[in-house]
Structures are given as C-alpha cells and as structure tokens.
C-alpha cells in the first residue's frame, strides 16, 4: 500500500472485529518484546511518531509519517517480528489513514469499538499505552494531540450518551444491585458460600469497589479438604476471612450480602433460616444472591420483609437489558464522535508543521 495524500496519520491493527481469539493471540505482542518492537518501528524510513496499543482484545500501531514512508514496510516489519505470513496479517488486520484514524481512536477510547460495548477499561489501557510511548519519546505533536483529544472525546461520550449506562458484567450487576440497596458498596459485609466462578467474579467486583469485609465459607471445609477450589484459597486471594461452614447459618444476620454458589443439590438456606436471621436485623435489608443450579436458597425467602433475593437468571436478564440499551446508543455516539473527529482532523491538517 502506498501512502495516501492524507495519510500523515496511519493505523495498523487487529481486534475482535476482524480476528478470532486464536488469530489475535498469534498477532498480539508479548509484553517482553514491546521494547524491541518500538526500536524496530523507529528505524522504519519516514516514520516520525508511533504508539503501540497492546491489550488482550486488540493490537494496534498508530503512527505519523512523512512522504517517504511506505505502509508495506510496516506490514512487512510486523509480519517478520511476529513470524506471520504477510497475507495472513493483511487479511486479519485493518489499515486506516488520515481522518479515519482519528475516528477510530475516538471510538476505541469511548468503548464503542469494544467487545463489551461501553466498557471503561480500554480508556485506562489507552492512557497507559500513551504514557509508555511518551516515556520512550515515540510520540510527537500529531499523536500527542490525537490521543489527548481522544481522552476528552471518551469523557464526552460517557457523559453525554448512554453507552456506559447500566452494568453488563455479572459481578458489576451484583455490585450495582447492592448499591441500590445499601448505598456504599465498600461498607457492605459480604459472605460468599462456595467458590464457583460467579463467586470469584462477584468478589472481584466488590473488592474493586473497596469492600473490605469479605468472608468466604463452603462445604469443602468440612467435607473435602482436597477439593480443587477451596474457599480458604479464595478468601486468601481477596484478603478476606474464612468462616466454618457449620457456623454459617447462625452468623447469617451479620452479613448484608450473601452469595451462594455451590454445587449442592439441596437448599442450603431455607425460608425459616432467613426469617430467624432477619429477626436479629429487622430494619436492615439483606441481599441474597443464589448463583447455583439447582438453587441453594429457598424461593420462599424472597417473601421475607426486607429481603431481596436474586438468582442468576435475574442477574443475567438485567445485564442483557443493560447491554441492549447501550447498543441502542452506539449509533448516536458514533455519529457525534465522527463529527468531532472530522473537526480535529481539519485542525491537524491546518497546522503547517505537520505533514498533510
């Protein structure tokens, strides 16, 4: 590919949009090789600035170049570096130039190009990639302006459109529900019964919001000390406490949020036990999450005053509905970002110091 008239900015990248997980894995740069990759990039003739974004879902190389730059040299260099076929790389990557680069980076930063639409993690990753590129002295006037504006655009999109409204991750949905009941999630006392994947996701979400009072219990304490996943390991991982399973029912009233995620074929928590616990905390709500199939909490517990019982179907339905409402906002957001991108591109082109 030869350089286009407006190709002072260029992008070569791959993401879930064009490649599956295996293909992305083969293209992604190992963290240990980023330094040497940058060194090779800087040696490419005509390349003036560059930035590498390397996450689990996307690998992208942004750059600014003068008229002597040949895009094929970048493709060839990347293929050689990752020991991939040139045809494979050309097929599983996208190339953008000029205003398209600006629009793309705006969409990436705002999260509308992410697999989980509206997620905010990508903005942090983009900022980190930018900081690293700055430390290496790889960025200049064009990329500095491009990325700083993209951070502003991301903030604008999150504030002014609904692309980030509502949680879509199961752990985050649980935290959001806890927030609607208790207010501050970090003040909630969480008890996890079992050590399933949902339990881990919930623990991660609560921990990331500053929750300190985390307790884990499970039948494997008493039954099977050689179990593959032990509650005490989970507690240790999240700086939590462990509780003997035999003490779990009598301590139920001490917790605000109780998540049951075990493979038990019978109910671990009956309506009667919940009623007894609520007698000891009548005015404080209790949030029960039954993440097990078959269910671990008797459905009748939902009828107890001040008790809020959710199972995984309920939580998944909320996550799906939130995702749908985010998707409905994507086009509106894309349209607005496109206009902002065009404005920025015109400003960049108008600068005499930058190649146009």
């Amino acid at each position, binding site marked *: 590919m030869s350089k286009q008239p407006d190709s002072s900015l260029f992008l070569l990248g791959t993401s879930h949009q064009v490649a599956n997980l295996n293909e992305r894995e083969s293209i992604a740069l190992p963290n240990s090789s980023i330094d040497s990759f940058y060194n090779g990039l800087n040696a490419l003739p005509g390349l003036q600035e560059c930035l590498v974004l390397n996450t689990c879902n996307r690998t992208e190389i942004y750059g600014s170049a003068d008229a002597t730059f040949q895009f094929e040299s970048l493709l060839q260099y990347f293929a050689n570096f990752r020991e991939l076929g040139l045809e494979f790389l050309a097929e599983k990557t996208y190339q953008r130039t000029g205003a398209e680069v600006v629009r793309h980076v705006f969409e990436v930063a705002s999260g509308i190009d992410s697999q989980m639409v509206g997620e905010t993690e990508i903005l942090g990753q983009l900022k980190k990639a930018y900081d690293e590129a700055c430390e290496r002295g790889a960025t200049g006037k064009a990329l500095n302006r491009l990325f700083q504006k993209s951070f502003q655009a991301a903030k604008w999109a999150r*504030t*002014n*459109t*609904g692309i980030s*409204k*509502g949680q879509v991750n199961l752990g985050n949905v649980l935290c*959001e*529900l806890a*927030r*609607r*009941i*208790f*207010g501050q999630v970090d003040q909630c006392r969480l008890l996890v019964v079992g050590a399933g994947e949902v339990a881990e996701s919930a623990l991660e979400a609560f921990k990331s919001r500053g929750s300190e009072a985390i307790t884990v219990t499970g039948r494997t304490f008493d039954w099977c000390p050689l179990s593959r996943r032990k509650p005490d390991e989970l507690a240790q991982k999240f700086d939590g406490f462990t509780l003997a399973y035999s003490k779990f029912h009598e301590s139920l009233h001490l917790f605000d949020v109780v998540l049951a995620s075990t493979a038990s074929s019978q109910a671990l928590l009956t309506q009667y036990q919940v009623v007894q616990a609520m007698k000891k905390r*009548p*005015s*404080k*709500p209790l949030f029960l999450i039954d993440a097990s199939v078959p269910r671990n909490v008797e459905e009748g517990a*939902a009828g107890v*005053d*001040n008790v*809020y019982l*959710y199972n995984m179907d*309920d939580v998944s*339905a*909320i996550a799906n*509905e*939130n995702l749908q409402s985010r998707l409905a906002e994507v086009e509106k957001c894309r349209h607005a970002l496109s206009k902002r991108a065009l404005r920025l591109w015109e400003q960049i082109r108008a600068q005499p110091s930058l190649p146009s």
Partner: protein
Amino acid sequence: MNLNDVRDLLWLATACYGASFVLGMVKTRHSFSPFFRESPFVLILAGFFLQTRALYFRGLEVHGCPLGNGMERAQFIIWSLIVAFLLLRLVWRINLLGTFCAGASLLLGALSLGLRKWDAPYWTATGYVRLFKDPWIELHASIAIFSYGLFCLLAVVSLMYLSQRQALLSRKPGFLGPYLPPIQELEVAAIRLLAVGVAFLTLSMVVGTMHWTRHPEFVSGSKLTVTTALWVGYLFLLGMRLSNRLYGSRFAKWSIGLFALALLSLSIVSSKSKKQAFYNPSLAPLALVVR
C-alpha cells in the same frame, strides 16, 4: 399572563414545577448537554420564586399569612415542601428528589388551582376580620404549615423508597430503579425528616397552646382534637421507627398515609374561631382553616 396576579403567578409556578418534573424524568434516560443539565433544578427555583411572589401578593391582600382557604394552604404546603427540599439539598444530595418534589407540587398545585371553590375570596367579604390578629398565633400557623411541608417531603421520600423497593423486588432494571437513591439512604432521610417535622410541629403546638390557654375562645374543639391527634400520630410513628418496631415498607406506607390524613384534616379543622364566627357569620360556609 399578568405577573402581578396571584393566580396567574401560581399557575406559572405550577407549570415550572411540571416542566421540571418532565425534564427530570427525561434526564434519567437521555443525556442533556451541559448547558441544560441543571434545567430541572433551575425550573424548580423559578417556580419557587414565582410562588413566593404570589403568596406575598396574597399576604398583602389578606393582611397576614395567606392561610385562609384551601388553595392558600395547599400552596403554602408546596412552598414549604420546596423550602425543605432546597435546605436538604444544601447538606444532602438525593437523586431524583427534586423531580419527585416537582411532581408532587405539580399535582397538589394543579388540584388547588383547578378547583375554583378552594380559592374563595374570604377577604373581600364585608366585615372581614383578618385571620391572625395575634402575631403568636400567626407564628403558630406558619410553623405548623412548615412542618406539613416537611411531612410532605417525608411522604415524597417514602414514595421514592417504595418505588425503589418495588423495582428491586420486580428483579428487572425498570424505568427508574437504577436512578433512584438506595433504599437504606432513603430510609435514613425519612427518619431525619420525620424527626425534624415532629420537632417543628411540637414547637407549633407549644406556641399554639400558649395562645389557647390565654384565649380559649379562639380555638374550636374539633381543631384542638384533630391537631393533637395528628401530633400524637407523628410522635407515635417516630417512636415506633426509633424502636425498630416499624421500618421498611410499612414505615414508608405509614408516612404516606399519615400525610394523607394530615391533608384531609385541613378541610375538617376550621380555624374560624368562635369570635370570628360571631363577627362575620356569613363566612361560616367557607370554613376558614388555619391548618
């Protein structure tokens, strides 16, 4: 539209509250540009300003605190509700509280203005005797009505509590659920509002009692019974809540129910003293009411 006419001003204020309510609801789902983001609050302030101006003009007409007919009392309660909301907002921001207050103001305001007979011009009757000759009784009435504003805010907060609870129990995201404040926060707010409301009502009762002991002929038996019953009712509610015997949804329902009774009592209790009835018997059907 005459900006010096009481009813025109009050209609305009009600329209402002209505617009604030609609915009507040729309804002939950749609993003506003930064310039319009605070528009629901600005509309509440505009409505409050217009309402204050209207009540001031009416006060000049009746030569005292305008609490002489159903419309005036309803408007004074709305005014107190907004004052309570603005004061609360300074120390404690509660999501959508302004929108719910605007909704309640729209409802009560439109009702009081729509029913023309609520706004009987009692001050134009021949031989009109101003309601509050004694400044202490005027103070008593205004504090009582302000406590009604606080109880109105308590009812609004309780309604928000029940809405959030219903959204959580339905196990669906719902229209408002994600934007309403946490139920625990709402319950704490409700307890505080109840405590402050009871304090104001008690103060009003103390001032009223001082007047009553000196001039028992000014206070009717029914008024004394109903106001005392209402005061005891709110005191009982506070006691039950603080002792954890009444909480959650039942506490919220009681708060709303008691406020409904308080509103109903406004039309039952006549402030027209025995003396006033003697002075001007033609006004008797209008049932002038202090609270």
